[in-house]
């Protein structure tokens, strides 16, 4: 059987299946922004962007771009009907006040108990926080999208973070190129595995002990 790690698009596609119509969603940069390409176009989702856009649409075509309407990466975007603008304090009131249903974020490390590191590379002088810390503590569900291992093949899912912390106990589910892992009070539960991989292989690429879900299955990537 073909044993290949999921592509970035496949991770995004898998996460898209978690979303429910009407969800208010904040997408981080990287794999997360790809998720919106895979949701049902018949359903309504509401995208929140930190600088004060609720109901953010797709990237703007050159002719419709307005330098005052941008996403968190400062790229020109559009607004969907029903969208609205807020100032930064109200925008983060939405975040911190638990009004965002799902945040999909990139990750550098996730710990056994759901601590997240994603804002600063270890041992580097400067880092940028932006909205990361607020969004990580604020969203009702936090999904982390990342590769399962780092460039050296070492685990990014660890017992204890050694990267600078973004927020403690905040991650709900980790979606990697090898697995879907839920953070529970009892520990990390392996729910789904990429086609061709075994639970042992996922465990080997993961520092903390994984609990096997009784419903353990293959990630559907069709």
């Amino acid at each position, binding site marked *: 059987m073909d044993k290949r790690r999921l592509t970035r698009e496949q991770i995004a596609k898998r996460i898209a299946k978690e979303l429910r*119509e*009407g969800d*208010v969603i904040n997408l981080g940069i990287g794999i997360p922004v790809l998720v919106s390409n895979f949701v049902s176009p018949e*359903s*309504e989702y*509401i995208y*929140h962007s930190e600088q004060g856009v*609720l*109901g953010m649409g797709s990237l703007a075509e050159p002719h419709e771009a307005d330098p005052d309407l941008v996403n968190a990466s400062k790229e020109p975007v559009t*607004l969907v*009907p*029903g*969208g*609205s*603008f*807020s100032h930064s*304090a109200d925008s*983060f*009131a*939405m*975040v*911190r*006040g*638990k*009004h*965002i249903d799902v945040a999909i974020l990139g990750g550098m490390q996730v710990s056994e108990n759901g601590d997240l590191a994603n804002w600063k590379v270890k041992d580097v002088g400067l880092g940028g926080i932006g909205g990361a810390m607020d969004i990580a503590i*604020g969203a009702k569900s936090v999904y982390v999208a990342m590769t399962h291992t780092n460039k050296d093949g070492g685990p990014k899912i660890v017992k204890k973070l050694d990267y600078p912390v973004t927020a403690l106990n905040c991650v709900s589910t980790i979606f990697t190129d090898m697995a879907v892992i839920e953070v529970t009070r009892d520990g990390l539960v392996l729910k789904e595995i990429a086609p061709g991989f075994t639970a042992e292989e996922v465990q080997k690429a993961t520092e903390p002990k994984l609990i096997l879900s009784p419903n353990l299955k293959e990630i559907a990537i069709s």
Partner: protein
Amino acid sequence: MINKVFNSAEEAIADVWDGSTILFGGFGGAGLPYEIIYALYRQGAKEITAVSNNPGYHEEGIAKLIAHDRISKLLCSFPVQKDSYVFREKFNQGKVDLELIPQGTLAERIRAGGAGIEAFYTPTGVGTEIAEGKDEQEFDGIPCILEKAIKGDFAFIKAKKADRWGNLVYNKSGRNFNPVMAMAGKITIAEVDEIVEVGELDPESIVTPGVFVQRVVKRS
């Protein structure tokens, strides 16, 4: 399709439970969600903790709930308005408790509740009976007291227009506490004069984005 519009006030408030904390918008009669308040009266929930700037006049608004012993505690800035005799009577009989809160502190505590700010230091109330039992600290030479966030299981609010996403605009000073209560209610129910199509409200002028509103009902 997102649709937060309910068919009737009764349906919109049906699941309010005994002992809920409810935030009631309005300043006197301005911006008061009369119909969902009366629907709640008919529904019968009791032992309610009510957060409302005023206690209602005569038997109007939440005075109706107080008159029928549905409210066991009121958080309020101004309980002694003329014609607030219902509250005064029930308070003197020990049927309803009162937490008296300066109006600005009340508004800010509610906003804090909606914004995930758990507590804040304010200069309002220092040296008064409001400060009793509260932590006191100076910042840049300004003495302040610590006030905690107020959150509601429900918020009952009144707006002028809504769309099915729950975006709201208000009418004049009928705005008052309604937008901050919308933020602080776990289930925010908006009574509105008019329901418009999604996209009809100007995105620059929406005061309460739909993210803060769970249910909408048109005033009959």
